[in-house]
């Protein structure tokens, strides 16, 4: 039985073993470059991991592996801007969870990167639906600073990569309120004190080394980790939902000259003009439309459309109840934004080009243009349609294994009720 299972799944797997030695040409596809207009009947060519040409009527280079998309659609690899991919196996099993630190000695200094498991089951499951990069976000432990997230490239084997310390995660919403002492006043008092302490640390490093420093709100480890944030090098990724909280974040960004990325922003639409003016990008879950808390009373399915219309740069992520296991639903969530008033092209950009730019990798990822890394997905239909699925996913030009543990389970139970059919176990 096992043999037939493997045969049944052999076709996409075969590409994974094809080396990147020869160039690859995807032909007969509708190509969504995201950098420009879509190209009907287009061709995407990549070689040595990099896109070499994108256009209509291109001929495949000699010796190229040619993949006929048969009228399918091609997009850049999708980028999830907030997830636990690679740092969590099972949400409710604490032993499988690498997302947070409960250590009282540090919070901002916490780094998710050493906890990343390149072989985590969820990576292949997420990648199978076109997600080629994901932010692994830290979760909150002892303070309003969760620590530093990482950008994961979800490739198999050599295509897997981790960029650590991609941003510092902070919460000024209800989680932050609880951790700071029970009120928003406490949150902002704490923030001001911490930022003051970071500057004090910068000026008096020797005092810390000689154990002569004054008391600080966070430990030395944390203050050191926050230095890149205060000098505007590391993005401060701030979760806020209530319009008034968002306005406080905008004020903070201006006062301390910080590079801020907003997360959540359920009521972002109410202050979209101010967010756009401050040039702050926003990561949202476009499906959040319930007044789940008193700081989320303005939740609406039109949040994405309204913020986009106001000129806010948006990126999407699966951030509700399904955050811990369905990062793979990213294309569907973008489709829901499109179904609720956001232009289709803008919705696709919110899972490709925009997150690439927001996370500082816009020169290499996020669009299909010559010179960019060949993260390419071929879909069997409209990439934002709920019934569509990738037929091929390329990361760094390499065709990815499309077989997940879930596929193996399905194949194992393809026939049931036959005596001894499962005896090979």
């Amino acid at each position, binding site marked *: 039985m096992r043999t037939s299972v493997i045969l049944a799944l052999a076709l996409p797997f075969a590409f994974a073993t094809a080396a990147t030695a020869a160039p690859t040409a995807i032909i007969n596809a509708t190509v969504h470059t995201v950098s420009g207009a879509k190209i009907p009947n287009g061709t995407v060519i990549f070689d040595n991991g990099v896109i070499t040409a994108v256009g209509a009527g291109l001929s495949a280079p000699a010796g190229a592996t040619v993949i006929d998309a048969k009228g399918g659609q091609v997009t850049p690899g999708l980028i999830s801007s907030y997830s636990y991919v690679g740092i969590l196996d*099972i949400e409710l099993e604490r032993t499988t969870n690498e997302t947070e630190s409960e250590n009282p000695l540090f919070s901002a200094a916490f780094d998710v990167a050493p906890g990343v498991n390149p072989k985590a089951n969820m990576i292949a499951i997420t990648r199978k639906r076109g997600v080629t990069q994901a932010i692994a976000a830290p979760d909150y432990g002892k303070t309003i600073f969760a620590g530093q997230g990482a950008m994961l490239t979800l490739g198999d084997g050599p295509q897997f990569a981790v960029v650590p310390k991609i941003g510092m995660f902070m919460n000024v919403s209800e989680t932050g309120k609880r951790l700071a002492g029970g009120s928003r006043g406490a949150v902002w008092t704490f923030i001001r004190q911490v930022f003051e302490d970071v500057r004090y640390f910068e000026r008096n490093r020797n005092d810390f080394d000689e154990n002569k420093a004054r008391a600080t709100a966070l430990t030395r480890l944390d203050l050191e980790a926050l230095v890149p944030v205060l000098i505007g090098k590391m993005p401060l990724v701030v979760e806020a939902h209530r319009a008034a909280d968002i306005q406080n974040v905008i004020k903070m960004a201006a006062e301390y000259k910080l590079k801020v990325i907003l997360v959540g922003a359920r009521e972002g639409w109410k202050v979209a003009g101010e967010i756009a003016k401050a040039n702050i990008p926003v990561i949202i879950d476009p499906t959040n439309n319930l007044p789940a808390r008193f700081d989320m009373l303005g939740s609406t399915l039109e949040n994405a459309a309204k913020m986009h219309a106001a000129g806010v740069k948006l990126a999407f992520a699966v951030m509700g109840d399904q955050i811990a296991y*369905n990062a793979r639903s990213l294309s569907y969530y973008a489709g829901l934004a499109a179904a609720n008033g956001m232009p289709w092209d803008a919705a696709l950009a919110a899972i490709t080009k925009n997150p690439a730019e927001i996370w500082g990798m816009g020169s290499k990822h996020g669009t299909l243009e010559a010179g960019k890394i060949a993260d390419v997905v071929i879909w069997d239909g409209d990439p934002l349609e709920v019934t569509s699925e990738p037929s091929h996913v390329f990361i760094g030009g390499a065709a990815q294994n499309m077989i997940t543990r*879930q596929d193996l389970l399905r194949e194992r139970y393809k026939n049931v009720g036959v005596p001894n059919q499962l005896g090979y176990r």
Partner: protein
Amino acid sequence: MRSTILAAVSAVALAVAGPASAQFAGSASGKRLADMPRDPFPSTYTPLPSVPTAIVGATVHTGTGATLNNATVVMSGGKIVSVTEGGAAPAGATVIDGKGKVVTPGLIDAHSHLGVYPEPSVDSLSDGNEATDPNTAEVWAEHSLWPQDPAFSRALAGGVTSMQILPGSANLIGGRSVVVKNVWSRSVQGMKFPGAKQGMKMACGENPRRVYGSKNRSPATRMGNFAGYRAAWLKALEYQYEWDQFEAKRQKGDPAAKPPKRDLELETMAGALRGDILVQMHCYRADEMMQVIDMSKEFGYRVSQFHHAVEAYKIRDVLAKEGICGAMWSDWWGFKMESFDGIMENIALMDAAGACAVVHSDSNVTNQRLNQDAAKVMAAGRRMGLTISDGQAIKWVTLNPAKSIAIDDKTGSLEPGKMADVVVWNGSPLSVYAHAEKVFIDGALTYDINDPSKQARGDFELGMNSKEDVR
């Protein structure tokens, strides 16, 4: 009028209603005991006013699996009158142009916690789990249900017209569920689906053992779970036996026949033993469902439906043979150990095996898009080679859930005589771009995407999010 109280615990009593025994005579409290209503919180649901309506020229998924093209749906008096290809609108009917539209029955969510876990999700409104004892068969979800939950109006915009509201899964036996129609009402009684049976929520696996194990009491293991169920069923069987004995004596006219003491917990379980209350059991793993099936035979009750049933695909032949429905997610998996083997083809495989396959939500987010969850499963099933029509996928969110909560004789499909619970979609409901444009409940236009006066909001949301808020 002894019969009224007896009926609450014994179906037999209904058939043999006779003179009250002398037991309760002679005092006001005795009379009260004797006269207690068998349905103490009766439905007061009244359909909204409706006019005869015809949707003409639409693609119609009837809910039975069939699809009609260029079809006309006629409703009148709150009921479906006819569904015919090429049919004309009757004289006097309000005509809705169905060209380019798709019509389905109102969607039915067989697993919801709206109102018992409402928004805002503050502690004060968190009323879904009476997690104080592993057996709380005596509690009723309808007594927790807050009719003002803002999630009801979102569900309506997603085409959901009926749902089963269940207690949570902290307990082995969590209490009674209630079936409601998705209408605005001042009271729960005003939402209760007329004539629908209650369910009894039970739970397998991780949740009860975690909740009570963490309190250092039983159940702390899966074997503790089963010991707990079986001890409870044994008590229920003995309770039912006592009432049967009393009933037999009473039928013989024995004036000394003394009714057993009523017990609200055992009354629920006895109702489940008799089939008056449907057993709705939360269970993820195949091996646990198999053991539950044996247990149901041990005590002589029937499991109506396994909820979540993430591993139903492994035993779909058994579930088909036993006639047990599975209410399942399209793609939730991996959030707990017992959901680790979830696959997207689960529901499609159940359906292909001839079992009763139901797409459920258990969520106030995904219940807004049950149609798209059905679409996900349909697509996954087709990719593995199964033949699944669009109409069949719609059955997973209409007639099958109706069957799983025993309201399929009244709603769940577009067939003459059934409740006119109808959704008009802007295009295929199996698309990400789908919107319910009009939702009819018992023939009354209850939601209209283009008419703000037909977009009900509960009390809680009044005065929020004014235009002046926008900057």
